[in-house]
């Protein structure tokens, strides 16, 4: 019985397209309500993710695979932080808020900061002028790297203006072309799904 989901997709799809263009407040209220449903569905994804995380790490601990103590720390953090959040809330002054400020925040910043080191190393090894396209990319990248920071102006007064031109003309033209292409592609895929031509989202038939 595959006609049921296809009909439902057609009805919801066409209704949402129509609601987007109807400015009446009742239509907008229905649209907002449907988007709240979408948020509820996202919440289920969080539950699924937590179960998957638990299963993966519990298996590693059970089998004592390499690095299993890290899995233990992960599961401990998952249980303790969730329990504290449910028990005390997550507002200012709570334990979860302190954990966030003193553990999560510096760790997340550190992880991102480490990227600078790896990008520098990767750029040195991978950024090579192997053909015309790669050379063009390399030259543009080097000009942008120097021209977009303060030292660029220090080296040559015209550097910021030149990089602005690169961004405003060739970059903007390419971005517009990509945006139009992506937009048309999304409309085409959307129509194919709504009209039941594309049925990949239903999964494989048995």
């Amino acid at each position, binding site marked *: 019985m595959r006609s049921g989901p296809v009909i439902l997709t057609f009805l919801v799809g066409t209704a949402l397209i129509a609601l987007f263009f109807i400015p009446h407040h009742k239509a907008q209220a229905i649209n907002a309500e449907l988007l*709240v449903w979408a948020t509820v569905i996202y919440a289920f994804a969080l539950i699924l993710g937590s179960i998957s995380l638990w299963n993966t790490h519990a298996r590693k601990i059970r089998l004592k695979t390499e690095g299993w103590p890290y899995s233990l720390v992960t599961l401990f953090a998952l249980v303790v932080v969730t329990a504290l959040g449910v028990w005390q809330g997550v507002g200012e002054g709570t334990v979860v808020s302190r954990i966030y400020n003193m553990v999560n*925040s510096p760790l997340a910043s550190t992880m991102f900061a480490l990227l*600078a*080191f790896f990008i520098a190393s990767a750029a*040195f090894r991978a950024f090579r002028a192997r053909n015309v396209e790669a050379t063009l990319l390399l030259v543009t990248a080097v000009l942008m790297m*120097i021209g977009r920071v303060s030292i660029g*102006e220090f080296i040559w007064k015209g550097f910021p203006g030149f990089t602005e031109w690169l961004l405003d003309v060739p970059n*903007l033209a390419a971005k517009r072309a990509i945006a139009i292409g992506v937009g048309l592609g999304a409309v085409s895929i959307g129509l194919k799904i709504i009209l039941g031509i594309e049925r990949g989202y239903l999964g494989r038939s048995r």
Partner: protein
Amino acid sequence: MSWMARILAIDRRVIFVLVGLGTAIPLLWPVNLPITVTPRVEAAYQTIEALPAGSTVLISMDYEPDTMAELQPMSIAVLRHCFRRNLKLIVITLYPAGPGLVEPALRLAAAAEGKERNKDYAFLGYKSGFQAVMIALGESIRQQFPVDFYKTPLDSIPILRGVNSYSKIDLVINLTASTAADYWIQFAASRYHKPLILGVTAVMATDYYPYLSSRQILGLVGGMKGAAEYEKRMDIFGDARRGMDAQSLVHVIIAGLVILGNAALLTTRKTA
């Protein structure tokens, strides 16, 4: 092994040390390299500057600690500008880890400009659901945020009296590291016709240039450089201007390494 071959086989730890020194030295001994304010940042600045005192601005700060190096100084500069112009600020975040960054940014900016919570600004906290929240704000702010971040009912907050939807909001500002910006363009700017300014990370900035030229956004502040330009325009010396020296030197080091690597490759190819 020739010199060029040695350069090509350079240990990555040498590169790490160079980048580490390139970051640390300018932060310890800043040289204050010149900063030019670009038209996009100037447009954002002028849009806020043009608002009459007492106008209401909705600011959504949608980012987490991973991008705070770029967006936190930007947020503080923009908040300080709004406070300096005596605008009424309603601040929200659509990221669960957002309040931990928004709260200190607001406190710092308010203290610097002598402003008070609930009298000059309100922080409504976090709400999940990007598009759902953006659309629902057009119907009722109170329905989405019955109480603020500090559990105060919205009706008890002086600056929120009479403000319940986009119709009473004069400008929307989105400071983000995600696709939240796309939705703010779709809903706040296109559907509710609200003037919109974006503040985004450097890697995202070029994605939003087309919206600037189509006037769907009125200003664009991109990355730490954009934040530094904004600080310069505000005549303040914050973390962004402090960080630009380090960013400049690291860019020069990376560009130098790329040029050196290619020169070495060319030379070894010719000699082979």
